[in-house]
């Protein structure tokens, strides 16, 4: 699932805060301006509250209920669904798989994105527009479409096997999607292809905000390109790197489309993500919405905890 882009700074620069230092407004005009600002905020805030926070609250209630289909009752004990999860082998498998995707894919993707962004930012690079487009285009492709394309090219008689046989690397086709390790590899490759360009855009934006004089100063002081990159460029990109880390973590933990479309969770559920399992529990199998809601809350907690750790570790601004 696509992660909504968070713009933390926007939210705090509301008109109300601009009238700083004066809790009581200096003039009726200022007061009116402030009220106008709040009035502009209300529709969006109300919509977010109604469409996001209210359903989230309802899901929380639902996660304390149990029953098949519409015959829902309060669970006894209330945490029944959460206790049940501890005995759920499939959930444990999907949790492991999802975390595996996270620790392998996110670092590779972000480092690659950082390198690509720096190459693209080089003023002497020719065909810059073309490269930028080429790298960003995957991010504009529907998750389902690309999953299906990957599924096709990694089929036993697909393009990848044909190419590898033609080059002479292998003699017999590899059953990419039929073996746990290769199927997971294909999902990770897919994620890298789809999301690296997306992160490059963020890094390019960050790079363009770096004051060129700082780079020149480093050069004057005799720093080579690598030293400059690590000591001058990276520190200035830190907030953006943190943002992409949080977004990627969030997105990977909630990943659904690739698991559902590319591998169908197979072989033997070993590529299934948590969100895919949640979907199966709620819609594919006998509808167990209480358990599904509990699963979604566990995913939320995992995302929140990881994001908190990352912010603690990554954000040293005061």
């Amino acid at each position, binding site marked *: 699932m696509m992660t909504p882009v968070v713009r933390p700074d926007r939210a705090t620069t509301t008109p109300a805060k601009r009238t700083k230092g004066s809790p009581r407004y200096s003039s009726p005009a200022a007061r009116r301006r402030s009220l106008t600002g709040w009035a502009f905020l209300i529709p969006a805030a109300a919509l977010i509250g109604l469409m996001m926070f209210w359903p989230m609250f309802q899901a929380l209630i639902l996660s304390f209920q149990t029953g098949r*289909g519409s015959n829902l009752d309060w669970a006894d004990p209330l945490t029944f669904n959460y206790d049940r999860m501890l005995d759920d*082998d499939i959930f444990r498998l999907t949790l492991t798989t999802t975390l595996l995707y996270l620790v392998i894919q996110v670092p590779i993707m972000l480092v690659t994105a950082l390198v690509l962004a720096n190459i693209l930012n080089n003023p002497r690079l020719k065909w810059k527009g073309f490269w930028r487009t080429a790298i960003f285009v995957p991010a504009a492709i529907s998750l*389902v*479409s690309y999953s299906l394309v990957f599924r096709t090219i990694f*089929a036993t008689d697909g393009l990848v096997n044909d190419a590898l046989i033609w080059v002479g690397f292998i003699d017999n086709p590899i059953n990419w999607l039929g073996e746990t390790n290769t199927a997971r590899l294909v999902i990770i490759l897919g994620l890298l292809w789809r999301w690296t360009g997306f992160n490059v855009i963020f890094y390019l934006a960050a790079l363009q905000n770096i004051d060129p004089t700082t780079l020149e100063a480093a050069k004057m002081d005799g720093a080579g390109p690598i030293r400059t990159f690590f000591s001058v460029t990276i520190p200035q990109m830190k907030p953006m790197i943190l943002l992409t880390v949080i977004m990627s973590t969030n997105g990977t933990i909630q990943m659904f489309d690739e698991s*559902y479309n590319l591998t169908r969770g197979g*072989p033997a559920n070993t590529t299934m993500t948590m969100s895919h399992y949640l979907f199966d529990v709620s819609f594919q199998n006998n509808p*167990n919405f209480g358990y599904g809601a509990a699963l979604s809350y566990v995913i939320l907690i995992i995302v929140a905890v990881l994001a908190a750790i990352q912010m603690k570790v990554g954000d040293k601004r005061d």
Partner: protein
Amino acid sequence: MMTKFRKGLTFAAAATLAFSLTACSSDDGTEGAEGTDGGSGEAAAAGDNSLTVWAWDPAFNIFAMEEAEKVYQEEHPDFTLDIQEVTWEDLQPRLTTLAQSQEFGELPDIFLMQNNAFQKNALNYPDLFTPITDSGIAFDEFPEGVTAYSVIDGENYGVPFDAGTAISALRTDILEEAGLTVDDFTDITWDEYIALGEQVLEATGKPMLSGIAGEPDTILMMLQSAGQSLFDAEGNPTITDNEALSSAIDIYSQMVEKGIYLEVNSWDEYIGSLVNGNVAGTINGIWISGSLQTAEDQAGNWGVTNLPIVDGVDGATHYSANGGSSWAVSSNANVELATDFLASTFAGSTELYDTILPSAGAVANWLPAGDSDVYSEPQEFYGGQPIYADVISFGAEVPANNTGAYYYEARDAVGVAITQIMGGTAPADALGEAQSTVEFAMN
């Protein structure tokens, strides 16, 4: 049906994604409004002569409904049907949503339901259905194996539509290379099938069968051919200590090991193995015929016979089923009109079945339809064999079994177990795990 089902999955997934990306778009605006017109509008106007129907395939079940409308109009000239195309992948969540939100007014009068999902829906959401046992529909004119899908606690909830009667389809030209004919594959056991398969493999290099790895369709067909399923009559999972299941898994692993059964990864690869002539046959529901016939270059080179029997299992037969669907009457229906309509068409009109068989390949479950001449016409694609008459006679022999509400959970769990067994896990361990997975889902 399953063909459409799996192809449709892709689109469903695409639709789901599009929906989730546009977040809170206008689901209520467009589709809901349609539903209101169809459903509650109809209910309000109960007594007038029209019915709303949800079905999913314009070339197949919707076409059949349109023909049924014409048949019924002969005696009821002012009768009309409002048939709405709702893919199965949309229909299931729609039913779930309506049932969860208690908005039964949005239901149509009649909707189509996959046989394998019937028990699940009727047990979880009984409020969606109207029992139609005493409605005058002659359920005894359908094979028991087919009505059993839609019977809950002795009450009938559905009128069977298309048959999932299983056939063993064989490439006569490939068999000929090995010096065999379809007759050699008729009324045999699985052991004999394997022996013949080895002969074919040796002579032609082609496996007998293909199927999707991790999807236990073949094994479940073997089970049903012995009147068994993954559940006992009380609905308890019987994955461990299930003699028929262990025999079926044993047959399956033997075939894979010997190269007689080609495991592929997707539905498209499976169909590809058939139409590209990579295998010498297939065993599946009769609906597979639609896909086979897309390979026009193979016309005349196919034959159909019954299934091999599972040796040493009580009640084993040569007949089974996979897939199929039934018409359900909703709780929001004009019940009298809906049941009379179904009784005089899908459960009472040879004329209807005579039309939809040649044009849509819809094989009747309704036994009297099989006596019609249309069914005994030779089929050119099958070398002049009148396969539909054969299929009707197979259908009458299919043993009933209990699919239960947890059919999909059990099916998935057994699929996982088979993947593990193929990877080297001891069958007892893998099946034990599958059993506990299903028990876990049920508690």
